């Protein structure tokens, strides 16, 4: 198994949390994993990206045109980080309308659940349902359950499940 995933968003959107979920899921599924994250000033509302490489890799960074999957928590990041995707790569995008890859209005769904911050897990659930991720949705879900802080756990699982519900095989 070799899969390269970019997770793109804006500082404060929870890109790092999704990165951790995906990395832990890889470990649970028995794969080696390498990630690279954005820390520092960009986290104050700037554009941020995580690279996740599952399988036998050495470099923590993904080259342009090599990513199998892109999770775009901010639709305006498509022109910034879209070039990481392979031509046949799949983009899951938090966007209200069609036209941007596999789009889902994750922000609206998260807002309806009570906190827009969980749009990251709505989008992850949505992508998990597609079957194109390296592992099954149940692995990701159990990691979300395992690493969420107690007072956040229920909402996080709800968000993930809601994303799953909206996903398509």
């Amino acid at each position, binding site marked *: 198994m070799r899969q390269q995933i970019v997770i793109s968003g804006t500082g404060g959107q929870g890109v790092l949390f999704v990165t951790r979920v995906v990395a832990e899921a890889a470990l649970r599924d028995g794969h080696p994993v390498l*990630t*690279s*994250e954005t820390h520092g000033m960009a986290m104050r*509302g700037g554009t941020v990206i995580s690279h996740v490489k599952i399988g036998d890799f*050495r470099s*923590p960074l993904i080259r342009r045109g090599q990513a199998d999957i892109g999770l775009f928590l901010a639709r305006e990041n498509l022109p*910034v980080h879209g070039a990481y995707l392979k031509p046949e790569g799949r983009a899951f995008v938090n966007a209200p309308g069609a036209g941007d890859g596999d789009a889902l209005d994750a922000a609206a769904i998260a807002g309806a659940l009570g906190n827009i911050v969980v749009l990251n897990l709505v989008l992850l659930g949505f992508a998990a349902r597609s079957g194109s991720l390296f592992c099954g949705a149940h692995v990701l879900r159990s990691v979300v359950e395992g690493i969420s802080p107690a007072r956040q756990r229920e909402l996080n699982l709800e968000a993930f499940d809601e994303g799953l519900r909206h996903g398509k095989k």
Partner: protein
Amino acid sequence: MEQRILMGNEAIGRGLVESGCSVFASYPGTPASEILPAVLRFSGETASPMHIEWSVNEKAAFETALAASYTGKRAAVAMKQVGLNVAADPFTRAAYLGVVGGFLVVAADDPGPHSSQTEQDSRFFAQFAKVPVVDPASPHEAKEMIGRAFALSEKYSIPVVVRPTTRICHARQDVPCGEPVRLGRKADFRKDPARWIATPAFLPKLHRTLNEKLDAVAADPDWAPRRMSGDGLGGRPCVVASGVAFSHAFEVLEDLGCLDRVDLFQVLLPHPLHRAFIEEINSRYGRILVLEETYPVIELQLRNGKALGRTSGHVPREGELTPDIVEDVLRRFLDLPPVAAKAAAAPGRRPTLCAGCPHRAAFYAIREAFPQGIFPSDIGCYTLGMNLGAIDTCHVMGACINQGAGFYHAYAQDGGPVPPTVVTIGDSTFFHAGIPALVNAVFQGARFILVLLDNGTTAMTGGQATPQNGVRADGGAGPAVSIPGLMRACGVNFLQECDPYDMDAFRRVLEEADRYVRGPGGGVAVVVSKHPCILPAVVRKAQAAVPVFVTEDCTGCRHCIEDFECPALLQDEETERIRVDRDLCIGCGVCLKVCPAGAIVEA
């Protein structure tokens, strides 16, 4: 051993604990900030008691840990690369005097740079200081190298630099975690004036000993570069790489199916470069490419005019060596067709102060009060005051106070009016390097306003406490060091505190400070802008939330977007009117004072 997903910085922290490190000190700075929390966590998890501190600056951290090494214990200090500049003085001398217990200097470099004021190479600094430096290529390797580096430090009684880069520090990987060694060492400082005092008379001998140590390290088989592909016979082109550039190179060569077309060497210890390796490479290979970040440290030590790299122009001389760039360089080196040109990526969104950030209110008031002012500032979240046109300089930690003084003296000697000068510095930066600067400015008769942006934390790097909080790294209580008390002790005679959320009052204090600065007997006027960082939810919950609403009086003039730049105020594309993003707005209410049309009102 148990596999855990660890960030590079956590792997380094784990390595320190597993290697029996007893004293660890650090000052926060990207990309090194997560090392201390990891040391703290793992020392707790493995019941390995340590002294762990967020020091007031890197020099204090360095000297504290170094003295612990003099007692025979293992000690380490961690910082970002420019932190080592602050600790340069003890660093360079520590090489001459050597160490007793293993002593590691973790200096995290930031090629790019992503979050730093330079992209300097700490391996070069290690060479300048004449100490060995190791360069891990992955989080796993970083953890493994810590124990080996301690052993190296003890074998040769020499400080050893561990130099990860951002892509190691902020990478995560599955890393095996084991049990800490139990060294059981007791502090035992042995007096040795010729060494620990080392007046100039003793230094030539110490310098000779240091050179001999470096010769021995350069011949140590444990740290010889490793050949990772090819046959080593010299018939193929040769690639020499270190750090994460090695990891990029290995993977690119593998993807291109070219791993066996080259002899690829990984350098683990870039300085002093292994002596026999230099001879082998130079005598055996006709085509040599060196890939390293960020300066040509290995390349220059090869002393081979034909080696290709940063000095020859085959590798970009500045910026991060991303795997895309490494691929371009390797393709050219191997005469492979170049990758099809890729469209340039759109620029991303720039960072901004958070909605409700007290710094925004302070900056807005400063700029409104002194439209012709000069605004030296410093390093922290508040550097983002540049987006509001409220800072004019940002140099290095603590520089802003000296700059305020320098601007004053340069203007004042011309005899004309001195522009209002408002210096902004954060509380952590003030503790770090602001205190000597303030003493100097006051004593030399400089006149300016110093606004201490006191949000009670080191916000940019993750909210580490400062000495005024009275909370130590491990959560234990320490005596709180009062900032106003320090200010007065530095000789400041005008000192007022004000919450910048009350922007009218804040502006009045600024104007009063300006009168003091210009009046008879004026000097440095200090205004403490006091409001906690609103990032912690507990702070946001504790403060009143003003429901903000934009009326139809909004003319779409964009003043609140361009000059106030609150991310919670957005312009509606259709109506051109401003609307409030309810998810981001925390109800600080500062924007009520900002709208020229009075269209932002309390709902």
